[in-house]
């Protein structure tokens, strides 16, 4: 996408200390980039710098601090399926859809990483997680109520979305980064495949269905239901006669799913260079 040929609307917001936040929105209402500029700099210079959606630059000083945790107050916690929760807190920083953050019960905890499920412009940060009975954090997290404090790191990571056509492939709560990209408006030309064991595994399906229509496929391995593909993700993909080799394939989920799907895509002629994976560990 080239800015010279694209018209943008932008909103300007005073972020204090002489810094302004410009939110660029394309005419298709796709939020394109959030730019902070000082009052003295020209917006045009910034536009030039962001003429494509960049991978985030790694600010090493910032990186070293990234797992230092800050206290936030939980604004909501909803169980959206048995043992699966969305936890929300007011957004304290900017992030790029697809990034992760660390969460701990205490400031000194070793943080566990979770993808952000909300959009870049949303007022709150949503975290989608399921309870791991053997885990140290999630059994505690599930008991957190509105008004309680949790500790979170700043967001980081480069598994981030683009406006180009592509495939989003997720299993279970691996849908979270795609939910963030979806809520940020990076939906043009995307196809979303979501694998789950049970019919209640397809989190946020109403929103996905209404936007993507037939480009949203739910693959259920243990139950059958209307508009549900009966079988695993890999079965669905192996039945596809032709997959576009020049599009990007973004995978997110367990190691087993990512490795199996990646092997399958490669066997169907997708260059490994077009496969980008995020593994939950």
């Amino acid at each position, binding site marked *: 996408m080239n800015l010279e040929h694209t018209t943008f609307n932008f909103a300007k917001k005073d972020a204090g200390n002489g810094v302004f936040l410009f939110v660029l929105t394309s005419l298709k209402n796709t939020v394109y980039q959030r730019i902070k500029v000082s009052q003295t700099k020209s917006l045009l210079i910034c536009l030039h710098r962001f003429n494509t959606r960049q*991978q985030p630059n*790694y600010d*090493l000083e910032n*990186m*070293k601090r990234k*797992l230092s945790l800050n206290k936030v107050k939980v604004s909501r916690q909803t169980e959206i399926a048995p043992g699966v929760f969305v936890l929300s807190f007011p957004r304290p920083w900017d992030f790029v859809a697809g990034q*992760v953050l660390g969460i701990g019960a205490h400031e000194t905890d*070793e*943080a566990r*990483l979770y993808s952000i499920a909300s959009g870049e412009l949303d007022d709150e940060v949503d975290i989608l997680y399921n309870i791991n009975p053997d885990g140290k954090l999630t059994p505690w997290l599930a008991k957190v109520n509105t008004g309680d404090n949790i500790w979170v790191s700043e967001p*980081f*990571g*480069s*598994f981030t979305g683009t406006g180009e056509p592509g495939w989003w492939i997720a299993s279970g709560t691996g849908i979270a980064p795609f939910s963030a990209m979806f809520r940020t408006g990076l939906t043009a030309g995307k196809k979303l495949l979501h694998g789950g064991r049970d019919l209640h595994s397809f989190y946020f399906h109403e929103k996905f269905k209404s936007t993507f229509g037939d480009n949203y496929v739910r693959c259920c391995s243990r139950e059958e239901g209307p508009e549900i593909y009966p079988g695993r993700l890999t079965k669905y993909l192996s039945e596809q006669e032709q997959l576009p080799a020049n599009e990007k394939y973004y995978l997110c989920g*367990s*190691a*087993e799913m*990512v*490795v199996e799907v*990646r*092997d399958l895509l*490669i*066997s169907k002629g997708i*260059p*490994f*260079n077009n*496969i*980008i*994976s*995020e*593994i*939950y*560990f």
Partner: protein
Amino acid sequence: MSEIKESLFGKTLAELTEISKSLGLPSYTGGQIAYWLYKTDVVSFDEMSNISKKSRALLQQNFNFGVKAPMSVKESADGTKKYLFSAGNGKFIEAAYIPDGKRHTLCVSSQVGCKMGCLFCMTGKQGFQGHLSAGEILNQLRSIPERKLMTNIVYMGMGEPFDNLEAVMKSQEILTAEYGFAISVRKVTVSTIGIIPAMREFLEKSKCNLAVSLHTPFDDERRKLMPIQNVYPLKEVIATIQEFDIGKYRRVSFEYIMFKGVNDTRRHVNELARILNKVKSRINLIRFHPIPDTPLLSSDEATILDFQQALNDKGIVTTLRASRGQDIEAACGLLSTKELVKAQREMEDNKPKA
């Protein structure tokens, strides 16, 4: 069903002393137990002859000894051996013993399978089935006949050691402690793909060597080979290592598997030289051992040697690792118990339902 008892093998001296006290035994019994566990070949409490019969009975009543013999061994034409161990509940791990003149290396596993999903690794293809305890890591050394010959231990088998940091740190304490296997810290290397918080803790608390899987110096290429790059980028891994004074004897090395047309060009040499310019380290080049369905090929021999020379010319000490045990799938990146896991699952699926 009787309760599964904890194993004593894999406990530190401090833990053994605490256990002795809690059982009402003299505190020095901890040191005696450590001797039998880590300095001898005995495999049962009855053989701990300097501990009273009554105390041995008490230990046996509360604990398992915890040393388990390997299930099988395969031997390569080049003398490399691959040992298979049960990790319980239908899980299996492998360890590779690599003799090379006076040097005897054991490559140990730290997890059953792996979560990291690197494109070039056979272990990654089986997914993740579980963490190993410190005892299960050390058992790979303790239970094999070559144990007393061993000069070097490398955590480069199945799994990502820093995804199982607690057990890895405990096992390397026992490996290097006087009361334990007393192997020099200079002869123990832990290999990681760069899980930064755990790597930082390791660099702070351990004196053992560190090896980092690098495989390409370019961010966008690396994240397609190694998904971890999306979370912990190489630049940050290197910056973290630079925070530490590596010292005179500790070694940091970067592992670099050579993939034809992917990471073996002059552009890669130049970028490696640039990013490692100020890092006290060396590069270890590794020939790629193809795995099923891989889109990657090994660089040819001439390219590998040129690449090595070019890096050495730029002042980066670069070695080329000999491929060992390829005929028994014991070479780098080939360890896997995927077929055994699959067979076990099929067996469970075929069991008559109650």
